[in-house]
């Protein structure tokens, strides 16, 4: 018994000691020398840290944190209509040829890797070679792919010129180049063979040699993806010092070109596996900044009441749509879809489902309302708003041949009509939104229900297999107009770009679960929305505007989805320790806090 008592006492002592551990012997972690403080945050791109992940920006679980220790050539502003606007990154400035045929990058003159070696044009060229193995848009080896770079030329130690293959140009070429990660050649050199560029040249040809070269480059992709440098050598404002399963510590890179203006000396990344943990961190005031997290109103109140916490809001290029499977009856009938749109009160649905992170869609066009105003101008006001109007809904349902018996709508042959919305269970705002929609429809005589699906991978599989009549679907994923409209008139609706040509698959084939017709009538004329969408990839700015106008009208009339709410980029900052955060509507809200810090905005209080 005495021994037992001693063990218990020791355990108790250890716990007490531990509970007061915050005053213990914390080591100064590396680079901090100016009292710049510790900045604590959660990475929006990788909310779940993985201690086994390599320091590799191409690895989906890599410990390369964008804007902190992983650097891009430049950081996109995600401008509403212009995808070619950027903040400097590895490149200090750039010149884009008027026809988008090339871009010349001028690197930061004084930038060095964290190990003291200079960042050179050769590093950029080598990183582009790595990007070719991963097949990013701008650096695809497939000769038929859109927007491939044809040449990478080192002009001098700090200048690189990248030319586009103008046989198949893309308006997103520049964005694709700028989004490239740059890593140190002297650390990664073993990953690529010395004759990589010769292989790439051969891969662009035809015949057996080209096939072999392509296969070799594809094989390299796995090697690149799995490469794990033993130590972080970063050209960003920070370098990874160490991590454990719950946290990562990054310390200031004194060789970073703008190190003098980098506020924090250290950054602590916290792991999170769910929204609740982020809420708790925020309520406790532990985060200097946090990404968008779906937050119920009561939790928002508690977060806001924590001293120093503030909410910053901006544009988020995402909307939520109620998507129909038009291969199924009665959703093949546009009047049914329109009737349903007239029965949904989007204000109420948004208030219930996403009061802090969404605004009701002003109409349904496939575009988020902010860029819609830019793209469409006065035309936006001419589109059908689909405001709540039960009388119009009744009219549309009758046009579709639906019948109302005993206060309930039935199919044209008199059989019951069950309107079922499928949503993935973990998306709590979608579940709430779907329930709000079904309540409204039920009150209007449509027998409606919500079915939840265990998780997102299962949801995506089943929706792609055409198992659902109606589901929730993210749309308007801008800023490039092609990216926006491929959600409505892309692979999910049967259109795919193969070898530079648009091909349409029948409903139920090749991932076509939306099942819309290949051509639709808009203002009395037949249009092929998939072909129009594909054209957005290479059209000039004026042409894009015309096409976007046509597609918005098509989406507004044909309603492949009923747009419910436009997401708002809601972020949290805490000003107790740092100031200088982006303000409402700043472009920078669409970049990680590491980019704010490297630009010199965030300052220790």
């Amino acid at each position: 018994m005495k021994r037992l008592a001693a063990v218990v006492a020791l355990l108790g002592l250890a716990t007490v000691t531990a509970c007061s551990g915050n005053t213990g012997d914390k080591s100064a972690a590396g680079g901090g020398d100016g009292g710049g403080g510790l900045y604590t945050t959660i990475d929006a791109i990788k909310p779940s840290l993985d201690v086994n992940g390599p320091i590799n920006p191409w690895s989906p679980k890599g410990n390369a944190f964008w804007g902190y220790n992983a650097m891009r050539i430049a950081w996109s502003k995600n401008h509403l209509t212009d995808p070619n606007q950027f903040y400097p990154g590895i490149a200090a400035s750039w010149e884009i040829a008027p026809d988008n045929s090339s871009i010349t990058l001028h690197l930061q003159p004084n930038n060095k890797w964290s190990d003291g070696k200079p960042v050179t044009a050769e590093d950029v060229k080598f990183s582009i070679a790595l990007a070719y193995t991963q097949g990013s848009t701008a650096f695809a080896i497939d000769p038929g792919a859109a927007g491939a770079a044809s040449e990478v030329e080192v002009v001098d130690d700090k200048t690189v010129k990248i030319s586009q293959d103008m046989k198949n140009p893309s308006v997103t070429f520049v964005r694709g180049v700028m989004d490239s990660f740059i890593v140190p050649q002297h650390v990664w050199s073993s990953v690529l063979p010395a004759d990589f560029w010769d292989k790439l040249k051969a891969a662009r040809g035809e015949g057996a040699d080209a096939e072999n070269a392509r296969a070799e480059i594809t094989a390299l992709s796995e090697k690149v993806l799995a490469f794990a440098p033993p130590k972080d050598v970063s050209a960003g404002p920070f370098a990874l010092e160490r991590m454990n399963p719950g946290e990562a510590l990054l310390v200031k890179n004194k060789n970073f070109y703008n190190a003098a203006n980098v506020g924090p000396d250290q950054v602590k990344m916290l792991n999170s596996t769910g929204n609740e943990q982020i809420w708790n961190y925020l309520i406790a005031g532990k985060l200097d900044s946090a990404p968008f997290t779906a937050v119920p109103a009561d939790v928002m109140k508690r977060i806001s009441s924590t001293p120093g916490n503030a909410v910053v809001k901006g544009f988020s290029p995402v909307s939520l749509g109620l998507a129909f499977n038009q291969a199924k009856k009665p959703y093949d009938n546009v009047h049914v879809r329109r009737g349903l749109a007239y029965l949904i009160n989007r204000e109420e649905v948004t208030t219930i489902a996403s009061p802090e992170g969404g605004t009701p869609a002003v109409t349904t066009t496939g575009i988020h309302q902010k860029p819609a105003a830019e793209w469409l101008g006065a035309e936006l006001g001419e589109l059908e708003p689909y405001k709540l109007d039960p009388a119009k809904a009744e009219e549309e349902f009758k046009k579709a041949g639906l019948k109302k018996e005993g206060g309930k709508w039935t199919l044209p042959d008199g059989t019951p009509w069950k309107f079922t919305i499928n949503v993935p269970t973990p998306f709590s705002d979608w579940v709430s939104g779907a329930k709000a929609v079904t309540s409204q429809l039920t009150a209007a005589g449509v027998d409606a229900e919500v079915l939840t699906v265990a998780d997102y991978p299962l949801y995506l599989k089943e929706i792609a297999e055409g198992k659902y009549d109606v589901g929730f679907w993210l749309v308007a994923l801008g800023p490039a107009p092609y990216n926006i409209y491929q959600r409505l008139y892309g692979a999910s609706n049967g259109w795919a770009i193969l070898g530079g040509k648009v091909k349409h698959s029948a409903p139920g084939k090749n991932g076509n679960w939306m099942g819309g017709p290949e051509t639709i009538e808009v203002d009395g004329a037949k249009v092929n929305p998939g072909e129009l969408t594909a054209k957005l990839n290479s059209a000039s700015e004026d042409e894009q505007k015309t096409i976007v106008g046509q597609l918005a009208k098509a989406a507004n009339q044909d309603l492949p989805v009923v747009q419910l709410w436009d997401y708002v980029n809601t972020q949290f900052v805490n000003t107790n320790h740092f100031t200088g955060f982006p303000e409402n509507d700043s472009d920078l809200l669409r970049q990680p806090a590491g980019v704010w810090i490297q630009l010199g905005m965030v300052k220790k209080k």
Partner: protein
Amino acid sequence: MTAFARRLAGHLARGLVMILIVTTVSFFVIRSVPGDPMAARYEKMVEQGMSPEAAQRAVEVLFGFAPTGSLWQQYVDYMSGLARLDLGQSLTVPGVGVSTVLFSAAKWTILPVLAGTLLSFLIGIVMGVYAAIKRSGKLGDILAISGSLLHGVPQYVLALLLGAVFTTLWPILPQGGTADIMFEPGFNAGYIGSLVEHATLPVLTYALAGYGGWILAMKSSVVTVLGDDFILAAELRGLKRGFIFRYVARNAILPLFTILALSLGMLFGGAIFIERIFNYPGLGLMLIDSITNRDYALMGGAFLLITAAIIVANIAADLFYTVIDPRVRSGEGVA
């Protein structure tokens, strides 16, 4: 070969067969889990602003590691890899072996589970003896009620309650992770203190969840032993109460050792809920992550490890019983 060695060999053979069966079943069950990890990854990349073509190419590169060939061929490959102790590569952490991922997560499950279970066992059996001896008094009642209460509350409810109290209402303990990253890992007071601090809530949950069962089982066992003839004989011989206590406790505790070993194995299953609630990155959290990402290789490895833990715990319980109970050693057997 001694009787003990024969017994051990028999157990190991049966254990291997069981692992083989469970591995086979879990292989096919895991691969029948519906859901498309490629589609999920593609969606995420597009939502993050990547162009559809780039996202498509990226998932093709990433899932180039995905198993190919018929299900039967995949099974043969998997089992032959297993025979070489190769569990394959994780899909979500390219280039990293499943065994590396598993072992890095396992230590964060094994230590808290062991600590919590042993803590609950020690406190539970001591309190169980008191509850039996004082069963007619108030102390006995209080102890018995505390046992019933805690035995009835599910582990995850306890975890939620403890989390709410100690991380939100009275936030004196951390909300997740294994240690504060600001401490240099190593044998130093700050780091060890931080480890203990972060493990406190999971350990406390395991301990409280197990305590009710131990106290009730021990009380029942002690009451049974108290009625045995040898206790009466001991009392008649005029032995002191302390000696009686030792005789009673030693005999009453024997059946509980079997349950202890088994519960250690079973607790790995419970860790899934506890680790999720406390964001404690052990096997349970890793398993949830692998299921969400449909990382078949990692899921298979995690199931295999949990199965092996339960089987090893069974064997250990049986062998341990052989060691501590002379009746088993002598072949009398115990029911």
